[in-house]
Structures are given as structure tokens and as C-alpha cells.
């Protein structure tokens, strides 16, 4: 799933990979792949993650991981960092999700009464990146679908999600709702349809696997 998601990144893009995922997705890009990774705490051009020994105490990503620079990296303040996001300079963001609705609404910042640490930079990433893709398990811990007709949790941004990568498949959000693009090896069509909380359109012909 992470390897498949990495193929979403086209050469030349500016990408924000959300908390946790960067290192994993990045591992699937070649050393010469032209891309600029952005982190909203003020860096364009994230380099490899550091060990505690090699860490610079002043150099973290938005998730608090110690990262490094590469030739051509630039630091900037928080206003410039989000100016970049809001003005359309962020080509792609990959975010986690609690729920995604069939019209692309994303809920990933709050579970009333349980989880309300604040949205951080998540709303701006979801609302303003030119393309928003979600990486998530297909269902929650107790097996309930995360892909739903409508979100029951507070929304992060409406209609923002273009594509969802899960452990079961790759699903696009279209004007007609969820559409299966690829299916994970070992997953059957009935299984993914059953685990999806809204209608799932199927492609014509064979369904590619990943």
C-alpha cells in the first residue's frame, strides 16, 4: 500500500506526507527522483530521518521526527509555510483518515469526547493541497468501514479527497462516489465491497492488483 502510494508522486512535485508516513513512502522513491518534500513547521526539502545520535535538536518535521536537509533545502517561518499550502504550491498531500465520505469529505481531526487535540495544520493541508490522497486501513479496529456514505465525525474539509489507498485497494472519489481502481493481492471483490460503507463502482474489465 505504501509502495503503491509512492507511485502517486510525480517527478517535480511539492509534497506533504502528513505525520508518520513520510519515511515509509520516501523509501520507495529512488535517490535521483526529483521531488520536494514539505513539512508545515517550516522546511522544503526534507532529507533522510536521523537517529538520536545524528539528530539536530533544531530540525524536526511536523510530527516531531528528527529529519535532515538535502542540497537546496530551505527553512521558513510558519506563515510562509502555510502560504505555500494555501496559495496552491503544494501539489499533493497524503493524509490519514478516520472516515472518508463518498463525496470526498474527510474526517481526521476529532472524535468528540475521545480525541480532541486540535487540528494542527491538517485542515489547511486537506482543504488546499492541489491533490489530497488518503492512506488508511480500510476498516477501523473493530471492522467498521472507514469509507462511508457520509461522515459521522466532525469534518476536516469537504469534498477534498481524490483517492484513497487502503490495505484492500485503491479507490477514487468520483462525481458518482467511490470507484475501485485497483485491488490488493489476496483480497476478493466481495470482501472489499463488504468492507466499504457505500456503493463501490467497479472498473470495466479486469481489476488490476497491487
Amino acid at each position, binding site marked *: 500500500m505504501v509502495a503503491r502510494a509512492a507511485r502517486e508522486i510525480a517527478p517535480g512535485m511539492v509534497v506533504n506526507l502528513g505525520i508518520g508516513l513520510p519515511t515509509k513512502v520516501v523509501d520507495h522513491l529512488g535517490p535521483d527522483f526529483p521531488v520536494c518534500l514539505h513539512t508545515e513547521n*517550516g522546511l522544503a526539502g526534507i532529507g533522510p530521518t536521523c537517529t538520536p545520535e545524528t539528530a539536530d535538536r533544531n530540525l524536526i518535521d511536523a510530527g516531531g521526527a528528527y529529519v535532515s536537509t538535502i542540497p537546496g533545502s530551505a527553512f521558513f517561518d510558519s506563515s510562509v509555510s502555510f502560504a505555500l499550502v494555501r496559495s496552491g504550491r503544494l501539489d499533493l498531500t497524503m493524509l490519514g483518515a478516520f472516515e472518508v465520505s463518498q463525496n470526498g469529505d474527510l474526517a481526521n481531526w476529532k472524535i468528540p469526547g475521545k480525541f480532541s487535540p*486540535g487540528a494542527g495544520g491538517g485542515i489547511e493541508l486537506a482543504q488546499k493541497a492541489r491533490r489530497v490522497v488518503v492512506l488508511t486501513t480500510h476498516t477501523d479496529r473493530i471492522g467498521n468501514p472507514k469509507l462511508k456514505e457520509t461522515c459521522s465525525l466532525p469534518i476536516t474539509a469537504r469534498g477534498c479527497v481524490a483517492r484513497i489507498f487502503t490495505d484492500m485497494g485503491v479507490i477514487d472519489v468520483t462525481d458518482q462516489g467511490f470507484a475501485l481502481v485497483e485491488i490488493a493481492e489476496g483480497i476478493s471483490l466481495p470482501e472489499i465491497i463488504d468492507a466499504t460503507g457505500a456503493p463501490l463502482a467497479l472498473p470495466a474489465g479486469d481489476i488490476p492488483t497491487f
Partner: protein
Amino acid sequence: MRLPDKIGTLEESISRISDGATVMIGGFGVPGTPFTLIRELVQQGPRDLTIIKNDANETDMGVDHLLVSGQVKRLITTHIGLNPRAIAMMNAGEIEVEFNAQGILAERIRAGGSGLGGILTDIGIDTELASGKQRVEVDGKSFILESALRADVALIHADRADPFGNLAYAATARNFNPLMAMAATHVIAEAETLVPLGDLHADDVHTPGPFVDDLVGLNELSEEYAVVQR
């Protein structure tokens, strides 16, 4: 002509903060958090503070000391997920917490520091963060009016500073510091290194000296500034 000197003492600088004050504090996580200034603020003990900071640091670090000491009435922030105490105190009603989208907190502070009356944005317009906020129509499109934020005092952490108060930040320790350094009536900066006038190249200054009132050099960096071991 020469440029004025603003080097002061830690105690005297922080003594300007009185009960009920609004205090901006730089930093995003550890980088850029002025731990020494915060320690002195705990030491001097003014109460009922409104703290404006991106986050609430982590347990036993920075803002957490102000929470332990009960000095915080209200916290204007973006994300407090790494401080369980902040979340518990919020849930128990011991502190008020106002959440902002991160870039909008940055813009509200920048607006305050730029003498603007507010900004218009559509960020969070689908969320509860927009509730209760004034709407303004521009060319048929609806925006949220986000008010400008200013503080009585801003606490800033710089990597290098000269005696006039020109500041330079290191790596991601920049974050909210240059914005807050523009947005307070009284700006206090701690600097890891004080350099002579002229040592910071005029093109490489991040916060120009006219914004800074008091400057405190750090003789040594406490454990709080170090790489966090997880």
C-alpha cells in the same frame, strides 16, 4: 549614529509580565521554544495568563511548567496532542483552550504584528472552528473574518542575536518566532549566542532589531533544549 543596545537581565525582562497578561511563546515542539524565559516566568509566578503558542510542549517541558503551576487561564493554540496534562486540564475545565488551524494562527499573529484589523480566509469554513465567527462576502464568495492577535509580551528563542536585537533562527526553530516577535507590545528574546553588531549579515537577519525590546543571552542550554529521547 550607532544602534541602541537592548541587552538586559532575565529577571528584569520577565518582571514586565503581570497577572492577566497575554503572552505569546515561540516554538513548534522543542525547536524555538524559549525554555529559559518560561522557567523565569514560572519563577516569578504571574497568574491568569493567556498563552498563545502553537502547542503545549510535552510533559515536564516548557508550557507544561506553566500548567503545573496553575498560571494559565487560557491557551490559544493549534495542537496539544503531545501534552496529556493540557488535554486533561482542558477536559476538566481548568483551562480554556481555543484551537486554531495552524497557518491561521500564524496569520492572525502576523496580522497583529502588521497592524492589520484582521484577515479573510476560507480555511476551516466547513468545521466547528468557523462557528461564531463573522462572515464577509467578497465578490460573491464567503470568507471567515479572523481577528488579528496581539500580546502584551512575546517570548522568543533565537539562535543568534546582536545587541540591537537583530535575531537569526536556526532550522525549524524559526516557526512562529519571527511572527510573534512582531506582534507584542514588549518583545523579549533569549539568544543562544550574542554576537557583536555587524556579525549578522544585514541580508540574513530574520527579525529586525526594531521589533525587539529586551535581549537575554543564554550562558548554557538546559536539558530541555536537547534532542528528545523517545
